[in-house]
């Protein structure tokens, strides 16, 4: 495999079109209209045809106008059908885009005998060929597709920057936007028009299916990684660019492992962005599956650590003597967990809260103060629950047992004052 200037230009074109799609995609995902991207990118097909019918030329501008017109028309029709017929949005979308796509196929097929026409190009795109068709600009040879997509990206960035506030309000709270005097409907249609224009600009380089992938997947990935809009926009752009690079590299390297030269770059870009999505789906710190599992695990570990400290403290208290050792097996039996106790003990030994002696484990000085703090929370809660809320039976102990893990200094002070500064808990045990 040899890297040539063609590969560089393929990647640049890919990055530009992926980023211009991804930027708008954020708003589609936030408005819960992701499939609108799919619908519009299928529906613009007759738009291209009709644009030519009217203008009689094959310049980019009439095509763009036709696509934008049909794109907005699609959005209007979907809304109108939904409102008039009571069909849900999915069904009205399905009716409209399949109809328009079929219309486009019929129009295009009329010429199939005379030109080498394959609607597949619309679906797959021919990004591999884009570097061969160039503009000469300041003595540089720049692929036409890179120029088109670059302009589109610029337009989209300007749109998002200038209408940032309007887009944000209409996306998150259309009702509020309307009361504040922004037209949510207008914003919707402008957005749809831009989606259609972006789709058309990206069509020839990456194909409609990759347009849909880049509209939805980077934004969905970013949505899993952050709760902030600006961060989401930035992350989606990074994801899109990364996917474009990885996609092309993948397209020319992965098939080589099994003895083939290369495969579709557009397809591999979609796969690459899918892999990035999967990574976020699994590992996103707050919204990923594994991220959530790790957070859950850390919590369990902390609770177990606290429970061991509490148990050691209580054993010492009962026996009335300091540094009484407890066997690890006894701890495990008392806490009814095996593996977690081992992990928690290891963590406690590491942080020198307990130390090992031949008879078992013993609290250290710092362990003792942590344990006393925990028991303080526990007994304060018991006093409060019993004294202030009349909640004195065994269940009060369980409530206190749960709450003790999440009680901080400030909460302890509040509890103390609320329970009238108790020194003994309801079981007549001293509050440390």
């Amino acid at each position, binding site marked *: 495999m040899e890297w040539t200037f063609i590969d560089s230009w393929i990647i640049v074109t890919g990055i530009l079109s992926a980023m211009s799609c991804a930027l708008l995609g954020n708003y589609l995902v936030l408005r819960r209209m992701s499939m609108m991207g799919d619908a519009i990118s299928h529906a613009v097909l007759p738009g291209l045809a009709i644009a030519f019918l009217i203008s009689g030329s094959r310049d980019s501008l009439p095509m763009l106008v036709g696509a934008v017109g049909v794109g907005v028309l699609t959005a209007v029709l979907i809304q109108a059908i939904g409102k008039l017929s009571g069909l849900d949005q999915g*069904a009205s979308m399905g*009716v409209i885009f399949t109809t328009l796509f079929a219309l486009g196929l019929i*129009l295009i097929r009329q010429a199939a005998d005379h030109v080498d*026409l394959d609607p597949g190009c619309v679906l797959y795109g021919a990004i591999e060929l884009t570097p061969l068709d160039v503009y000469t600009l300041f003595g540089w040879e720049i692929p036409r597709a890179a120029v088109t997509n670059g302009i589109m990206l610029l337009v989209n960035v300007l749109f998002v920057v200038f209408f940032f506030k309007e887009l944000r309000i209409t996306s998150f709270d259309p009702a509020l936007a309307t009361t504040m005097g922004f037209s949510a409907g207008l914003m919707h249609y402008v957005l749809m028009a831009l989606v259609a224009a972006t789709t058309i600009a990206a069509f*020839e380089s990456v194909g409609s299916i990759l347009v849909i*992938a880049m509209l939805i*997947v980077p934004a969905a990935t970013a*949505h899993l990684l952050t709760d902030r809009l600006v961060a989401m926009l930035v992350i989606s752009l990074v994801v899109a660019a990364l996917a474009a690079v990885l996609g092309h590299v993948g397209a020319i390297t992965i098939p080589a492992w099994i003895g083939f030269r290369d*495969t*579709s770059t557009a397809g591999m870009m979609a796969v690459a962005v899918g892999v990035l999505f999967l990574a976020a789906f699994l590992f996103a710190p707050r919204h990923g599956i594994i991220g959530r599992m790790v957070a859950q695990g850390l919590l369990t570990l902390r609770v177990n650590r606290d429970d061991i400290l509490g148990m050691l403290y209580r054993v010492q208290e009962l026996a009335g003597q300091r540094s009484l050792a407890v066997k690890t097996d006894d701890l495990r039996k008392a806490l009814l967990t095996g593996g977690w106790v081992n992990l928690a003990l290891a963590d406690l030994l590491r942080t020198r809260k307990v130390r090992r002696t031949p008879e078992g484990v013993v609290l250290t000085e710092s362990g003792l103060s942590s344990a006393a703090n925990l028991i303080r929370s526990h007994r304060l809660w018991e006093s409060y629950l019993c004294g202030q809320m009349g909640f004195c039976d065994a269940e009060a102990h369980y409530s206190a047992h749960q709450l003790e893990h999440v009680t901080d200094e400030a909460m302890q002070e509040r509890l103390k004052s609320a329970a009238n500064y108790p020194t003994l808990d309801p079981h007549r045990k001293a509050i440390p």
Partner: protein
Amino acid sequence: MPGSSIKRIVSHGLGWVAAAAWVWLQSDLAHAGGLSDTGLQWPGWQELLRVLTLSDYNTRVVIVGTALLGLAAGLSGTFLILRKRALLSDTLSHATLPGIALAFILMTVFFGDGKSLIGLIAGAAVFAVLGTGSVLLIERYSRLKDDAALGVVLSVYFGLGIAIMGIATRMETGNSAGLTSFIYGKTASMLLSDALLIAVTAFVAALLCLLFFKEFSLVCFDADFALTQGWPVARLDFFMMSLVVVVTVVGLQAVGLILVVALLIIPPSTARFWSRRLSVMLALSAGFGALSGMLGAAISALMANLPAGAVIVMTASSLFFFSLVFGTNGGLLQMVLDRWRLGKKVMHENLLRELYEWQEITAQQSGAAADAARIDGPRLEELLPRRSWSVHGLQKGLRQLIRKGWLRLSAEDRYFFTPDGFLQARAVVRKHRLWEAYLIAYADTAPGQVDWGADTIEHVIDERIIAELEAGLPDWTPKAVPESPHELIRIGV
């Protein structure tokens, strides 16, 4: 544009258009000059007859095949629409592509021939299920909503499919040509084996709909209730969706991706305009599906250059738009008619009440007891300022009431009730005052405020509600029309 050029554009322009789109996509390849002989060729009677009587073997296979596919898709699509999952079919059918490509490669490597229909369909089915599973996983375990989950799965799986397809087409052994028919379909060249497979699928789909009719309708209309009744909702749901998967996969290679989606979505959406009963909807949806398949295939067989798949979609959506306008269940025309009828009824009832109250007021003002015979009826100009009605509307309403035999016009242009009309007016006024009394008694509304509330609601109160209102108002004299609780607008003010 001038009328004469329209015909030229229809016959010549379509070719230009498509060529232009293509040329633009390819950005250079401009020999559009040779396109002028492109156009629709209208079939002769001979040909029309041949297609309609199914005498041609190929046409027969295609028409029967597409009709049966339409039937199967119409049946299973109904559940898709009722479960509000229309676009799942879109995602599902795109997600089959990697399965098809992978199955092709594996079969080519191991058996030498990658085009075994059963193998390809199995591959497609596996990935359709995987895709559906991925959608459900993303919805269940992430914060993304159904739309994003559908979009992500659709595009990524399809991208994967194209990437694998890219490898398949670069294989030296095994002829990969024709694999793309799974995307665009090859309706017009359907084989007997395809049609048979579709027939079996349609039969199974119909049988399952009959056998599980009760269970499916329960899950479609009230899944929560079904769950509380102990039905295995999740399993039934999966079963319904499997039916959709099977129809999609079988339909894919016969008619292509977008057409399958269209056949699953459009006929059931059309059927909804004619009935709300599931059994009727299923039958209609199957009928519309079959009709679109049949008509579409016939039209495309009759005219050159019309791709069958696209024509079938256009036929189905023509039926949809026809039903959108003329449907008896929420169709636009019906909605307009209903609104017009209600408007007319409101006009008539307002007029009757106005005239009745006119009699009451004149009787009051003259201090005499209401004696219909001696009281002067109002003239048109006297009636006009009493409500915000137009001269034209008022004239029309009065004319209609005279035609109904409820009013008559005296020699001095005054309007009087006929005995029939008087009874009608009494009933209307009674409804109005019943509601007023109800508002005063139960809604704590001031007597001066109740007129407006009663004014809008009186037109839609039926016998049952009248009975309930009367039961709820103890000091209401049956049959009588009580006096108005508020002051009526005086005449001549």
